[in-house]
């Protein structure tokens, strides 16, 4: 699922390991989600959205809605 995770992470000056540590997840999870190799579970998606203080749909693009990227 395409997302803005890398952009938001970099805007906060975090590297992938920092973000993984802050969320208590593996670094591979952050790498996989950023690279669109893994779709995160809902709890991780919401956890990420809460961390960046954005709605989930601002972080993950909904491919079934035509009005988004």
């Amino acid at each position, binding site marked *: 699922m395409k997302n803005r995770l890398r952009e938001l992470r970099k805007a906060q000056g975090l590297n992938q*390991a920092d973000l*993984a*540590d802050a969320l*208590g*997840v*593996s*670094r*591979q*999870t952050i790498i*996989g*989600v950023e690279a669109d190799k*893994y779709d*995160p*579970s809902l*709890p*991780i998606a919401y956890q990420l959205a809460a961390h960046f203080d954005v709605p989930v749909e601002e972080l993950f693009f909904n491919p079934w809605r035509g009005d988004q990227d």
Partner: protein
Amino acid sequence: MRISKYDRRQIGYVALCAALMVPFGLFAGYALRTNLFGDNVWLAFGVLLALGGVVWSINFLWWRSLDAVHQQGLMSSWYHAGFFGAFAFMLWMVANKMHKSDYGEGAMHMFFTQVAAGFLMYLWWKWRGSLLSGGKVE
């Protein structure tokens, strides 16, 4: 190299599992060598299963500590690569006419036990799913 909190937790569980597995293995070896349970197969199996279950329970704690994407990666690797590896090895045994040997039969038993246990778990998952919906399609 930096080790994250997440990785430290995984290392802790692996260390704990190894710390329990070694004395368990030593005990099982001792029991076998000294014929501790005599000819009572069910007693031997029950005791080893109970002690092994304690070690195995660490596995559940470790699994619950993994994040969902990590679990997905492990499950996918275990299911697809693990089963294909076992399947390929079975074919290798058949090609080498080893499948009738004690070694081959042991390997077959292990493989089919694993398949049967996986199938039972899958049935439980299906049954639990219909139980959660009250058996109704809403």
